[in-house]
């Protein structure tokens, strides 16, 4: 999933302080799972903002809605009939949702309500960590299912650097060495011979370095 973290309320207050009517839009997908922008978080943020502005003596109406997704036309269309009433929208979706809503409703200011962080997993409730950087050319087949692009600080492709110590990365902060995990996993799979094979040079043009990316599938395109 796409992992996001809550933005400080003070920052959101600053965005919307001049509006009279604001819509807070949540998203039922990834940000709900990482507890940053689902229906519950929309309720908490809206209530906090209402109280803040009421305490300031400002009469700002704050409404709430949570869409199934904000990265697809059909769900964003659900607010087409109401969006014109609002001077500002705070989207609690990831950066993708905020942008798609901005593109679709060009006349309405849309502000981000979360900080979008990475693609990752729920290690346990309240702990999320990165697993994929969307590099566009997956090499997990050769690395025992552990990704050196997202999990090695240096994105090394042919074994660890000198900074791997007792299974941990030298950058600190309890980050495990990705190559230690790769070697452990290849050993467990009885495929340690694969570790000896040199990885070919990666085509980084498929990663973000090649500019904004697009996938076009003519077989499913309408």
């Amino acid at each position, binding site marked *: 999933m796409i992992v996001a973290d809550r933005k400080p*309320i*003070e920052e959101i207050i600053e965005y919307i302080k001049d509006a009279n009517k604001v819509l807070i839009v949540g998203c039922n997908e990834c940000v709900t799972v990482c507890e940053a922008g689902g229906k*519950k978080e929309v*309720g*908490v943020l809206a*209530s*906090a*903002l*209402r*109280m*803040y502005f*009421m*305490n*300031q*003596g400002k*009469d700002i109406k704050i409404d709430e809605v949570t869409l199934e997704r904000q990265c697809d036309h059909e769900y964003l269309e659900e607010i087409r009939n109401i969006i014109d009433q609002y001077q500002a929208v705070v989207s609690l979706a990831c950066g993708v949702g905020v942008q798609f809503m901005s593109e679709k409703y060009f006349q309405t200011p849309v502000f981000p309500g979360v900080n979008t962080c990475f693609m990752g997993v729920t290690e346990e409730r309240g702990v999320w960590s990165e697993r994929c950087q969307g590099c566009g050319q997956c090499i997990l087949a050769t690395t025992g299912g552990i990704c050196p692009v997202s999990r090695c600080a240096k994105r090394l492709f042919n074994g660890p650097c000198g900074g791997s110590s007792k299974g941990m990365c030298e950058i600190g902060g309890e980050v495990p060495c990705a190559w230690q995990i790769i070697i452990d996993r290849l050993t467990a799979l009885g495929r340690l011979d694969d570790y000896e094979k040199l990885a070919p040079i990666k085509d980084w043009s498929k990663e973000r370095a090649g500019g904004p990316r697009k996938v076009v599938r003519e077989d499913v395109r309408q």
Partner: protein
Amino acid sequence: MRLRYPDTIRIVRVPCTGKVDIVHILRSFEKGADGVYVVGCMEGDCRYNRGNLRARKRVAEARRILDLVGIGGERVQMFNLSSAEGPRFAQIALEMTEKIRALGPNPIKEKKNKMAA
């Protein structure tokens, strides 16, 4: 026992304090409550293992948010006592009422009335 405690308190029953969410606490203030306290079982005695521990964290988060929006986090508090502690329940009700009285009414209640007028 027929103990008396202040009649300004409105009791909202929940199956476990683990059911209490941050938004429930916030909405009570939005609707004009002057204070909210959550009464859970003793820590370690939760029938559902972690219900009261979850509530404790949520109360802490609600306090943080209420401080941020200017209502004052000290208006929310969590207490842990067993169901056999009737006198302590009455005592807490009295203490909390006095504490909130000293803090004065919920600041947004007045402003809300002014805006409506």
